[in-house]
């Protein structure tokens, strides 16, 4: 087998050195009844060519985003990623390295994480950031747990316009920690009234901006209300590109900012791996209560600058049952992709990219708003908005596939019982052409 270097002669010789007669002897501790005599009931080994053919056959049954007019968002976005990003993350030294537990031979990973942390902190308008989480939804859930630890309170208020997957992941993680999670119903054209729900028991209020319907909001009144009651504001985003154009959550008073970094460097990948971003204020109680890994600067024996994983006394491998979270693996390679793409963009590029996204979305909203029966509900938005249709949105979406349009996410996909069957959440990015937009509008007119 191509990945297994031992030859039969090697095996014989090694058994001799070990002093056993067969490999079976090394499995002597396994209960006899559980030892399989032969291979399990699965296909035998396959050549590269056979594997490629099997995968190509499955891949062809999917409609790739680049092959169609594509407007699907709601938490993951189609952006163009420079070819150099994918090249660099495939460098053997990045791709096939482990967690940097031996910092002297992991400076590539560690310095990159330090750059990543700084980029994330600056983008979110916060003081510090960690070295990545699994994704935005788990970052959100961990942020709620952290807020509970910091405030020593056990109630969380989630906005109804928080992505429902994020709300569910948070509810799941909080449930057995005895944190009470309250949430409103979603409000497609606006924002639910979270302020009225904040009380003296509230650890945090969680608001997404742009929200799951694409709407953007001024978080300052919410921050003020939360702070007045001693609660923290956790700001969530699923579209990091928005931070190139709209005010940062930090500037609007957020205490913890979490979100999804998938738009930069990562790609769609049917939902994962993505990269969770996690940033917060620089407060000792915050930093000591953060989940996830942190890269920190230090010096080596010669006094030269270097980087290490630090503050690991928060983490499970040291602190065990008193750790801030059980997280071990992060999303290092995706963080690397994010950092490389962001470095290529720079401030100038990110701002331009964000402006382009907004322009495309505005043009799309105007085009669709001109279709009889269609109402654009979202007033202020970045690159995503919600329309009210005169028909079932899921059926409309399905009908548009054959016309070469993946039209967006029907709200019923996220809230099957939410009474939002006529709502469609639509995203536009720099990858949409004028022709895509025109096609969508004309095709929509046809199917309505």
């Amino acid at each position, binding site marked *: 087998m191509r990945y297994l270097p031992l030859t039969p002669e090697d095996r014989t010789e090694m058994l001799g050195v070990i002093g056993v007669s067969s490999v079976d002897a090394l499995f002597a501790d396994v209960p006899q009844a559980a030892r399989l005599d032969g291979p399990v009931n699965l296909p035998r080994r396959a050549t590269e060519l056979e594997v490629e053919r099997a995968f190509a056959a499955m891949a062809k049954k999917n409609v790739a985003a680049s092959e169609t007019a594509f407007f699907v968002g709601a938490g993951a976005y189609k952006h163009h990623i420079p070819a150099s990003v994918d090249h660099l993350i495939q460098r053997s030294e990045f791709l096939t390295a482990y967690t940097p537990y031996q910092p002297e*031979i992991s400076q590539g990973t560690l310095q990159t994480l330090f750059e990543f942390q700084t980029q994330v902190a600056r983008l979110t308008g916060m003081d510090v950031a960690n070295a990545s989480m699994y994704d935005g939804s788990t970052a959100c859930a961990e942020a709620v747990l952290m807020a509970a630890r910091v405030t020593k309170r056990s109630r969380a208020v989630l906005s109804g316009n928080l992505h429902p997957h994020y709300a569910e992941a948070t509810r799941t993680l909080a449930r057995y920690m005895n944190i009470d999670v309250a949430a409103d119903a979603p409000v497609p054209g606006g924002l639910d009234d979270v302020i009225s729900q904040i009380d003296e028991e509230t650890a945090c209020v969680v608001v997404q901006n742009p929200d799951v319907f694409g709407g953007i909001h001024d978080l300052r009144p919410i921050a003020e209300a939360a702070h007045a009651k001693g609660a923290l504001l956790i700001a969530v985003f699923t579209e990091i590109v928005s931070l190139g154009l709209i005010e940062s959550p930090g500037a609007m008073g957020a205490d913890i900012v979490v979100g999804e970094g998938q738009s930069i460097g990562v790609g*769609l990948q049917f939902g994962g791996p993505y990269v969770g971003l996690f940033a917060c204020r620089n407060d000792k109680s915050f930093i000591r209560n953060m989940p996830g890994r942190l890269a920190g600067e*230090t010096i080596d024996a010669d006094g030269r600058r270097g980087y290490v994983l630090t503050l690991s006394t928060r983490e499970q491998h040291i602190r065990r049952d008193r750790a801030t979270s059980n997280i071990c693996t992060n999303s290092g390679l995706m963080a690397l992709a994010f950092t490389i793409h962001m470095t290529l963009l720079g401030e100038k590029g990110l701002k331009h990219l964000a402006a382009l996204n907004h322009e495309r979305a505005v043009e799309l909203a105007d085009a669709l708003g001109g279709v009889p029966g269609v109402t654009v509900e979202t007033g202020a938005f970045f690159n995503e908005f919600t329309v009210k249709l005169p028909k079932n949105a899921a059926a409309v979406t399905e009908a548009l596939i054959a016309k070469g349009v993946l039209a967006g996410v029907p709200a019923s996909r996220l809230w099957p019982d939410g009474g939002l069957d006529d709502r469609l959440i639509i995203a536009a990015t720099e990858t949409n052409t004028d022709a895509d937009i025109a096609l969508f509008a004309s095709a929509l007119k046809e199917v309505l």
Partner: protein
Amino acid sequence: QAEPLIFERGRTDLTGVDFPELKGTKTRLGGLERKSDIGLPGLSEPEAMRHYVRLSRKNYAIDLGIYPLGSCTMKHNPRLNEKMARLPGFGDVHPLQPQSTVQGALELIGELAHWLMTLTNTPCVAMSPKAGAHGELCGMMAIRAALDARGETGRRRVLVPESAHGTNPATAVQCGFHCDEIPANADGRVDMEAFKAKLGPDVAGIMLTNPNTCGLFERDIREIADLIHEAGGYFYCDGANFNAIVGRVRPGDLGIDAMHINLHKTFSTPHGGGGPGSGPTVFSQALAPFAPVPYVVQKGETWHMVEHEAEARADGAEPFGRMVAFHGQMGMFTRALSYMMSHGSDGLRQVAEDSVLNANYVLARLKHVMTPAFEGTCMHEALFDDRFLKDTGVTTLDFAKAMIDEGYHPMTMYFPLVVHGAMLIEPTETESKSGLDRFCDVLEGLAEAAKSGDTARFASAPVHAPVKRLDETRAARNPVLVWQESEDQPQAAE
């Protein structure tokens, strides 16, 4: 050569990406335009390329040499898998596209689930956990949900061996349990008498790694399973060491109720300097109803993703919830299935055999100069303690750092905690005999050097690395977590 940070070299007016001009369309931002600058430096593409290529060369990697980190299963990462994951039909599809447009992606998940269930002989697998620890959480939450469903509110004690990974107790706590440590016996395995003594009506279950973190198979695993079940608890198995038995022993045959599978370990999805991982969790019949959403089902020719609890409940399930947005680590699923199909049932069995053979070969080659923590053969990891360094003044840490100067990544140090100055070596099946011989020669040489008093090289190690030994205490005492323009950068010796 030191590589500056992008913040020291890049410029906010420089970009390495071209865009079309803006048209000047009227914005619809509701007055929420960003007011302040971000402070993000950019680099042209050639400069960015060099920066990251040069940084990469400061890393050790499996493509450069053996990565003998015990409990991490750092094996060869086939490039075929990278190629498969990048097929546009997998890499360029959105998790919320209509399911009719992603039938191949759902089929792939279903196919991978079939392989995992077959290899473990279990009836159910939750695919969405994002990493090993996340898979543990998935397993323990299912146990908690099952106990809750039984109304067993008093069962909150989870038995965890001393030698367990730190994720085990941390996970238990996140599910509202508390941990009770089981001591190890002189053999490095669960002390059965102590275990039995700890059983009781408040026991929720046990979290056991098998093969355990001492590199040994828990011989009494069937009895442990039976006893925990009799006591009304569940058996969570930490699957970190599945590589030792894959294709040869099915955990379901051992009586487990839940086990996560690290696709990034056993099935070789590359670890990328710290992730991403993927931790699908298999369940016994008892726990299967409590598995989280989403999951895929096949209805005739059509694949379907069940995304909502309500739909699952309508099917008779009682999912404990959703752990994450979307459906899990598709990119890892693709790579893992490509790896599995490449090996096949026969190749996977060979994986287990060769990984165990390689570890025992290392143990046999080194037991004369280093001190094995336990007698006898091991599974896929060889565990040594630091008795052979006694009175040499060389610590496990020094010994590890000296390996760096010899061109090798150190083994896992100081874990498991039950062994003094532990050194846990996992070669994996993708190392050649000649490579292991060179590796063992070097360790022999180092052990002899330490014993013969040639110790200066240990204290100063590493010297043949991009940096010398780093001051981790300083980093923790005065955390510098982001770059700041004003800060005094320590660039040279003080």
